[in-house]
């Protein structure tokens, strides 16, 4: 009983209320600017892509930044989410929500299936295996004529700013809460030292697969949002370059920092969008940015620190004796 009370108080603390207010403000301002056509369709697409990439980056960060597994197959899970959600919304005439759920769940199952054998591998070997599996997924869709094959799969556009923004918020909150739970602690212990984690009684395989499955679930969700926004999905979109792009966002923002990789995803997406008319320059500028970053901030913009918004909460007494 008293536990219930506690958690209620925790959820409605000052910091969370102010955060919710800020989110509503951001959402509302962007929505108003679109409605009054101060921002055009190009901006709309850019903002929705920012939301999609934030989901991809945060879920990749759970696998790589927090659990320490260098998996480079996120584009594959994104493709599964995209095609499976479109299968529901287009071929089976299902609702958008059904499509989003189905796409995410199939991606999560694929994550478990791929994770169990490959997560025994370490470092470079895991990277190569997941890279290859991501490409296999793409090639399967490329050769599935039922789902459009090489010419692409037409999907009606039903996602708008409201869907993209709030799905992004939900994804970040779910992953953040997972990381702050005892499961999340176990994942970080696996990253820090696998042998010690095992000696503590942590089932390291279980947590690696769990992180991989949750990461794949949200990559699938991001793919499903993408599919139902873009009019058409093409297998080529989900190549290994996409996986690298997501990994770069995470490294840019900081492995092991959620707020960091949100900034990384936002920054990269905006830079790419505003340089879209100069495709050659775009790659050069991104490369230069990355080189500068690696020289001046080798651990990413935020390292593994979080931007905490703690100043929104008045300091509690007796925190000194906390368990830190």
């Amino acid at each position, binding site marked *: 009983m008293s536990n219930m009370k506690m958690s209620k108080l925790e959820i409605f603390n000052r910091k969370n209320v102010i955060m919710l207010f800020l989110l509503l403000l951001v959402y509302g301002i962007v929505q108003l600017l679109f409605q009054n056509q101060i921002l055009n369709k190009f901006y709309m697409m850019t903002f929705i892509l920012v939301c999609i990439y934030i989901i991809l980056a945060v879920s990749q960060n759970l696998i790589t930044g927090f659990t320490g597994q260098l998996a480079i197959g996120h584009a594959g899970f994104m493709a599964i989410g995209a095609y499976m959600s479109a299968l529901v919304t287009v071929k089976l005439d299902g609702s958008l929500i059904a499509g989003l759920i189905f796409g995410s769940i199939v991606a999560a199952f694929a994550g478990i299936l791929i994770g169990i054998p490959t997560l025994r591998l370490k470092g470079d070997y895991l990277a190569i295996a997941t890279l290859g599996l991501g490409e296999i997924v793409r090639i399967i869709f490329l050769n599935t004529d039922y789902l459009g094959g090489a010419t692409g799969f037409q999907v009606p556009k039903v996602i708008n700013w409201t869907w993209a923004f709030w799905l992004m918020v939900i994804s970040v909150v779910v992953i953040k809460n997972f990381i702050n739970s*005892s499961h999340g*602690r*176990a994942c*970080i*212990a696996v990253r*820090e*030292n696998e*042998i*010690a*984690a*095992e*000696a*503590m*009684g*942590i*089932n390291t395989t279980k947590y690696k697969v769990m992180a991989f499955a949750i990461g794949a679930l949200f990559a699938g969700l991001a793919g499903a949002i993408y599919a139902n926004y873009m009019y058409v999905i093409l297998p080529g979109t989900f190549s290994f370059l996409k996986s690298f792009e997501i990994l770069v966002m995470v490294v840019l923002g900081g492995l092991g920092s959620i707020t960091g990789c949100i900034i990384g995803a936002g920054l990269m997406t905006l830079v790419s969008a505003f340089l879209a008319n100069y495709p050659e320059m775009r790659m050069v500028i991104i490369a230069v940015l990355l080189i500068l970053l690696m020289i001046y901030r080798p651990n990413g913009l935020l390292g*593994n620190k979080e931007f905490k918004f703690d100043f929104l909460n008045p300091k509690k007494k007796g925190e000194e004796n906390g*368990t*830190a």
Partner: protein
Amino acid sequence: MLLLNNIHVFYGAIHALKGISFEVNKGEIVTLIGSNGAGKSTCLKTISGLLRPKEGALSFKDDDLTVVDAPQIVARGISHVPEGRRIFANMSVSENLDLGAYLRKDKEGIKEDREEIFTLFPRLKERRRQLAGTLSGGEQQMLAMGRALMSKPELLLLDEPSMGLAPILVKQIFEIIKEINSSGTTILLVEQNARMALSIANRAYVLETGKIVLSGNAQELMATEEVRKAYLGG
């Protein structure tokens, strides 16, 4: 309490343990000494379930451990401090200790044990908010031992706690091991520092290339010609 009978362990084709048999009784300090590569760490990893024996029997309090996985072995009361400390470097001292109690649910008991560990290792208390990676070698060893104690083990497996420490710290660590033992925890201690290990142990086994070549009362072993020559430098 702990019983190994004719245990064989392989790393691929390498035959690391060639039929090891020994026992540890409740309340004892038993030490396993032997030179580098003899198979001491392999032995501890097999007991804690990180490695599986290919042949032989392994039991703890009459339960067969060969069919139990590593987390279950921790839950049954065996805690392993691996070689080279292996602390969680980017976490604070407190967070390291919390992870030691990972399998426990009794919040009150965990709190009490944390206080007990802070009494045993006052240095850890002073530094509880510091990142573990910034501790000195001796402090990291204390943290690794404290963390293992947080699971409230009946049997503590220690792999070379003196490795890389200054002599004064080695003495301190061994004093603490005796203290842990006298408060009721049985200890299996692996050491290259045979002199120190034999001085605090009740019984000892000498391991050479995957086989036990000598065993007996620690004091008596220390007096034998073979042990003096091979492990105590003359």
